[in-house]
Structure formats: C-alpha cells, structure tokens
C-alpha cells in the first residue's frame, strides 16, 4: 500500500509539474526567478501540503489541484517578498464548490436514473460509451471542465492558474473569455461525440447535428 501512495503522489507531481512551472516562469518572467527556483517551490508545495494535512489545517475533501496551484502561488509571492517559506497556509473558502456542485449533479443524475422513461442511465452500454469518450477527451478540456464545475473557481481564476500568459496589466476578463470559450467548445465537442456514439449504438434516436451559426 505504501508503494501505491508513493505512486499516486508521483503521478500527481509529474502531471501538474509542467503547468505549474510554466505558470510561475511566465508570471515572474521579468524577475530573476530561475527554473530551479520554480522547481524548488513546486517541491515545497507538496511538502507543505503533507504538513498541513497532518496538522489538520486542510479539509479532507479539498480540491487538490486548485489547492496546489494556490499554495504554490502563495509561496512564490513570498519568495519574492523574501519573507520566508514557512507560512504556506491558504485560507479556504467556506463553501466548497467541489462537493456542492458535484452533489447537485449527482442528485440530478439519480433523479434521472429513477425515472422509468429515461433509458440512458439504465444502459450499461451508455455508461461505458461515456467512460470511453471521457477517457478519449484531450487536455486541457477535462481539466478546464473539472476546474469550472467542481473547482470553485471563476473563469478568471482558472485563467490565472491554467493559462500561462496573463500579461501584466491586461484585464483578466480577456483571459476569462478564452477559458469560457474553451470550456464551451470542449463541452460542445464532448457532447457531440457522446451523442454520436449513443446514436450509433442505437441508444438514442436522433443523430446529432453539427452546429452552424444560422441554425442550419
């Protein structure tokens, strides 16, 4: 089991490292921050998280991806204020959107499952198709959808964390629009693929249509 824990942590560490370091290096590109500094901060984040968990300073149902980015940003800003790296606590919002919205969606799903007329949730094949399409979805689509719906972040917040090119002085709304546009496009494509697969499997009757501006 110990090896499994180590493997899980290593996998998360490696999967987020690119985004995190690129984000920091771009945010502080006009400073003397080195790649080694960004890497050190990233490692300090994981050490700090474990410390915070053991000291009971973080909720168990925290959305870790957002937490890692937030705590890393906090550390980086302290790095440049030369205030030390000892205090790495991020105040968590009282309303945890990850659980709240997730519960609402799960409840809606259960309602549909309970409905006699709805065949999708009763179909094992439909659920399998969904699983395959989700697995087939490219990044950063799934990350943006997860952060949007379950990370408790606004589009500006997601743009700050995921998008590495936030120009100084440039309004966040511009990048937030890109996040919104990207999320919309991701859901469009994902929905289209799922519907097409369900149609081809004979689970739904209507073949999905490609979107046009004038409705054709």
């Amino acid at each position: 089991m110990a090896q499994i824990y180590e493997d899980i942590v290593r996998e998360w560490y490696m999967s987020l490292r690119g985004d995190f370091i690129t984000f920091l290096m771009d945010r502080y590109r006009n400073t003397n921050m080195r790649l080694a500094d960004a890497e050190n901060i990233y490692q300090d984040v994981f050490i700090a998280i474990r410390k915070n968990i053991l000291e009971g300073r973080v909720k168990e149902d925290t959305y870790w991806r957002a937490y890692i980015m937030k705590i890393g940003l906090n550390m980086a800003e302290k790095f440049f204020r030369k205030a030390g790296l000892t205090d790495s606590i991020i105040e968590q919002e009282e309303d945890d959107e990850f659980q709240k919205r997730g519960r609402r969606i799960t409840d809606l799903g259960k309602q549909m499952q309970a409905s006699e007329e709805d065949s999708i949730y009763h179909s094992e094949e439909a659920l399998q198709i969904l699983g395959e399409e989700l697995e087939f979805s490219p990044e950063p689509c799934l990350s943006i959808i997860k952060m949007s719906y379950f990370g408790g972040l606004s589009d500006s917040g997601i743009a700050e964390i995921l998008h590495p090119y936030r120009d100084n002085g440039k309004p966040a709304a511009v990048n937030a629009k890109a996040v919104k546009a990207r999320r919309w496009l991701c859901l469009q494509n994902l929905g289209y693929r799922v519907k097409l697969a369900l149609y081809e499997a004979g689970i739904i009757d209507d073949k999905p249509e490609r979107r046009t501006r004038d409705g054709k």
Partner: protein
Amino acid sequence: MENNLDLFDKYIDGSLSDEERKTFNERLEHDSKFAEDFRIHIMILDGIYREAWEENTAFGMAMRNISEAALIRAIGRYDNTGDSDDTWDSLGLAAGFSESRWLSACISDKWDESDMVLPPPPPEFDIIDIGSAAENADNSDNSDNSDKSDSSDNSDSARSSRRQRLLTWGWAASVAVLVAIGATLSLSIMSDGRANVDDTIVAYNYIYTPSRDGSEQVDLKTLSDSELRNILPELVKDYRDADSDDMQGGEEAGMRLAMAYLMLHDRSKARDVLKEMSVRYADDREFAAQCQDILARIR
C-alpha cells in the same frame, strides 16, 4: 444543446428565477430533444465529477498516509540552491552545466534525476610547460655558453615570462570561449523559450476531434515535423474550402491550420490565419476573442 449550455448550468446552480425554472421544467416534459440534451449534459458532468472525485480522494489519502521518505522519493527532492547573485554559478557555466538541456528535459517531461546531477567541474587549467622546449630552442641558437649561470638565469626569466604570457593568453581564451558559449546558450534558451511558448499555446488551443462520419482526420500532435509539413497543403485546402454556412467547420479547420503552423513554429503563417479568422468569424465573439488572445501571445 449548443445554445442551452448556459441554461443547463443555471438550472444546475439553482440560479434560475421561479418563472425560468418553471419554463425549463415544462420544456423538459414537452421537448424531447431538449430533455435528451440535458440528460446527456448531466450524464457527462456526473461522469467527470465521479472521476475527479475518485482521483482527488486518492491523492488526499495518499498524502495523508505517505511517509516523509516516500514523499521525498516521489517528488525527487534535491538541493538545487544556488546564489542567484553569482551569474556564473546561476547559469552553471563554470561547472559546465547545460541549462538548455535541463530546460528541454523539464519542459518535455522527460526529466529524470540524472539530469539534476551536476557534472564534475572542469579540470584545472593545465599550464603548458614549454619552458624546457623554449630553453632548448634558445640554447640551440645561442652559441655563447661561456657564462652558463647567466644564461641559466636568463632562461629562467624567459621561461617565466613565457609562462605568464601563456597563462594570460590561455585565461583570455577561456573567458572568450565561455562568453561565446554563454551567448549561444542564451540564444538557444531564447529560441527554446519561443518554441515552448508555441507548444504551450497548441496544448491549450488544439482539440483533436476524431471524425466519425467517414472522413479521416489525423491527430496533429501524433505527427512528426516532416509529416506535418506534408499535410499542410491538405489543411490549407480544408480551411479554404470550408462551407461558408458551416461556421463551426470553418473555425475548426482554421484553428487546425493555425495550430499546425505553430507546431512547426511558423508564427508568421499562424498569425495570418488567426488574423483572417478573427475577421471572418467576428460574429462569433468568443472564437474571435480566442484568436486575438493567441495573436497577442505570438506577436
């Protein structure tokens, strides 16, 4: 479905007014397509949430139970401190550390611990002792050997001055070489930096949508540079031939072409396509904003 995503989200969040919610529920009952779109939307989000929840829970549990030693192993903790005021040390040039190699390794995620090990420092400067050779050469030309001690003293002095000149020349040459290496590395890092910017833009904006209608569509990210160049004419054709009524098709074709150019780091052509699309699809403000955003990054 494409026009109802915002409405679905408001319904999920409970932010619809009573009247709007009533209308929504009525549509669910009487509009089968609307209801189907909503069901699929919920099913997708439910699936994503469950997957996210499982991953999240696993990580939290792992971080709670992992030992400190295992955590250090997992994150590959090393001492990478250095005096940032020391230019040579921070660049690692004095130790021969290849930062561009490390940058490439890190950003390409092919990093492993061996990349973090500094190579041994360069050998000490070898003083070439040509004094003996010079002395021999001098002695062979010098037929006056009557005062051997005097000539010996002169030879020592000559050797010393020669060594000094050699040392000075050698040191200057070494500095020149290091400066040249530094300049090359800087250019390489800048060039690598631009390429990495292009790659990151592609990562965030390129979405591979496999086509199921019989037409072949290759995932551009699986192609090598030469393969990308080979299919560029086809991508250009797809973009130029896109049906004017099919906005989504045109946008997808155009974005594929722009991303292909960026994958090849041809920013000039990518800019041309993006500028054209931001005008052609100006009605689609979200897409036009996306094009403008990318243009701002590759100016």
